[in-house]
């Protein structure tokens, strides 16, 4: 077996969808002599995870993609009949209001969450001391972090990126043909979170995964996160996040700042 084929089977044995031989050749390091096989496989794997899946040269066609009509909201439920590699284009935390996320991002931008300079925010409303019995929040330690607030409850302890056990995220997933579908966390998946899941990160949707009303329902048994990221997309996403959130709620920049 020649080297690209060996790399290919190496990747496959690690659970990755096998890229085309032609692409592997382009992804191999330009060094002479070449490093040993395990190092080569690792290098090509890293490049694969950083590649754009919708690049037609990446796979031999036909490669596994979403079934036709997958996005049809009329279809109550179908199951995927084959494994599909996808990449993450967007991630949203549906458990938090956009405004709450905006306030947190702005606080960070003002440098107010840097430790030592924290402005500790109270939750809104009149907190009752009925919580005190539960968490021993005492008189002088009341702050936003310890009290569940309403809007902008992200006290210093919870960063914007923090996802709790009950957070629900929705992803935009793209297959190798460039088709996009929503992916909704049916069960909490630890890796999925703003800041922990990257844009361009690769995921394998397993055979049997549920597609309901055009949305993929994600849980740990039907969804394997391979890792990776597309640096440029990630950067744009992070930099544009505040503006996108603001636009979504129809807010102007405060006093033109």
């Amino acid at each position, binding site marked *: 077996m020649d080297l690209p084929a060996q790399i290919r089977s190496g990747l496959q044995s690690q659970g990755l969808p096998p890229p085309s031989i032609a692409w592997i050749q382009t992804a191999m390091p330009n060094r002479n002599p070449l490093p040993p096989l395990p190092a080569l496989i690792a290098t090509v794997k890293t490049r694969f995870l950083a590649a754009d899946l919708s690049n037609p040269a990446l796979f031999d066609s036909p490669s596994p993609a979403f079934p036709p009509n997958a996005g049809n909201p009329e279809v109550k439920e179908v199951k995927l009949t084959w494994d599909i590699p996808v990449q993450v284009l967007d991630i949203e935390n549906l458990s938090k209001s956009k405004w709450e996320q905006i306030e947190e991002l702005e606080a960070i931008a003002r440098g107010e969450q840097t430790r030592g300079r924290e402005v500790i925010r109270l939750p809104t409303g009149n907190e009752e001391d009925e919580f005190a019995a539960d968490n021993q929040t005492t*008189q002088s330690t*009341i702050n936003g972090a310890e009290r569940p607030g309403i809007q902008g409850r992200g006290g210093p302890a919870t960063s914007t990126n923090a996802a709790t056990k009950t957070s629900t995220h929705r992803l935009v997933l793209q297959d190798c043909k460039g088709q996009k579908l929503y992916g909704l966390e049916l069960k909490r998946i630890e890796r999925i979170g703003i800041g922990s899941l990257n844009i361009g990160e690769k995921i394998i949707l397993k055979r049997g995964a549920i597609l309901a009303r055009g949305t993929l329902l994600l849980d740990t048994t039907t969804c394997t996160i391979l890792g990776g990221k597309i640096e440029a997309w990630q950067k744009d996403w992070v930099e544009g996040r505040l503006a996108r959130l603001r636009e979504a709620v129809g807010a102007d920049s405060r006093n033109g700042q």
Partner: protein
Amino acid sequence: MRVLCVAEKPSIAKAVAGHLSGGEVQTHNTPEKYIKNYVFDYDFGRPWGKCQVTMTSVLGHITAAEFPPEYKKWDYPPPDRLFDAPVNVVVAADKTKVADNIEKQARFANALCIWTDCDREGEHIGNEICEAAKKGNRTLDIRRARFSNIERAHIINASRNLVNLDYKQVNAVASRIELDLRIGYAFTRFLTTSLKTLGGPFQDLLLSYGSCQFPTLGFVVDRYFRVRNFKPEPFWSIKVMHKREGIDVNFSWARHRLFDRPSVIILYERCLMAKKAKVTKVQEKPTKKWKPLPLTTVELQKMATRFLRMTGQQAMETAEGLYNKGFISYPRTETDRFDPGINLRLLVQKQTQSHAWGGFAQNLVDGGFQQPRQGRNDDKAHPPIHPITFASPSVLNDQEKKIYEFVVRRFLACCSEDAKGVATDVDIVYGEELFHAHGVVVLELNYLEVYVYDKWTGSVQLPKFTVGEMFEPTEALMTEGKTAPPHYLTEADLIALMDANGIGTDATMAEHIQKIQDRDYVRTVPRSSRSEDADDAEGSQATEGSRAGRPTRGGRGRGGRTGRGRGATNNGREGIMEFIPTQLGVALIEGFDKMDFETSLGKPFLRKEMELKMKAICEGRTTKEVVLDESIQQYRHVYIQSQQKLGVLKAACRQYVFGA
């Protein structure tokens, strides 16, 4: 041996003289009409022994820090010269008679005993008294009495265990006074003269700056914008109800709510498809609502603003009066744990004669007494605020009655037992979705019987469920709601923010809050009915949000919302006041914030640092000289930046005050 004793205020002098003399006392008037000199004999024990005592007092601080006359004009020299101008400490104009009395009495004395309040400010006043006395007599043996209430045995004990003045605390206060003077004057003059040129209301306006006032105002402005800029967003949820044994059991969704309708529709549909729900967990366990911690100053102020229809400042003044009359312990304390040596049962016993809570106190005396919870704070100076003797309602005015009653009820609650109940938790899985029901039955009210400010409502009894059983819910609904803006700050919120951010001391917070109102930087308005509605909406979110996020321990349960609503009416909270900045207040904070230098004067950071430095002086980790040097540098730096970016401040003033 002749001893001169000096208290911080006349009422303490009178009370202490009464206790030490046993009633045999001669009273002399002094040139200052509020101050009397009490002369009597007293045995201090060793080393002073039997003495002839003159007990008198001052009226707070005797001295004031001020700039020399050549710095009195506003237009010259420029304000920043005040950062290094000489500062003279002189006897304040209205205190010369007070100082003269001390000086004169000191001439006849061999020793001086300081009876000022035992806190930083009191320590400094003690030193002022020393200085005044030394003018009359340089050979005095000087001691200090340590006490935290004016109950007889406590005072006698203090007189027999005299200590020395703590010069570290004196220096901390001296630093604070000097910094406040320099910084306050420099920025006040800078603001006033610089903004005068804007004309209109600024023409004759005194724009006072204080390093606590501004961050306090900053909190109010910050919340104001959070309310104003708020954008409501719709959210959706799934509610499951099951009727059993005549009880409507409400199950709340583990996801609480999602901000996307199609996603909720998908999940909701899958619940309905499943038809039946399965019980996955049933747990019944005892639960408690903990009794409150011993009372600190900050907590007293917060509770008074919430439940007693008083401002923080009114509460402090009233508590001060009660302390001066000997009814309660010193009301300025950070301590939330009682020293094990203090005889709490005896204090409880004294409350048995009350018509209102005597029965409860009697029950404690008869065996119900429990040691209070121990908080984490101890200022090593004063115990938590507690009643010293019983005060019959007839000797108290309306405000005093409210504060006294609160202090006593809080104290009795502390000496009582946690409220007890049984909590039931039922988890179900419906489709793939998880739901939870929580019930609580209160079994013993205990401390809640006397502590009327706390409620444990929302008692919900759950019918029987068995793990593994399947049932078809009576009702499963998809619901819709909308986020509501936060409230404007209440005084309790503001005090909590100041406390958490190190703005002011527990003793001065209320004054700063009053100050920004006096300066017309903020106004208080009654919370409107509109925001009461919002309160409800938020209440439900807060309750459920908190449940989802953390393990249940006490039995707050589903009743959170209703309990809160009821609490509001029961406790007179409908009259709650909110803080809203004036246009001027907004302009000043926005102006400084937009200058965009590292530490805006509208933020708490600089002041917090200063407070920490005061503390460091008290603990001997730094010195007055170092602190003065550093802090003046910092503020001078800010001053220069503010000067350079004055245009930004002016623009903010034009925008908000003139609407340009």
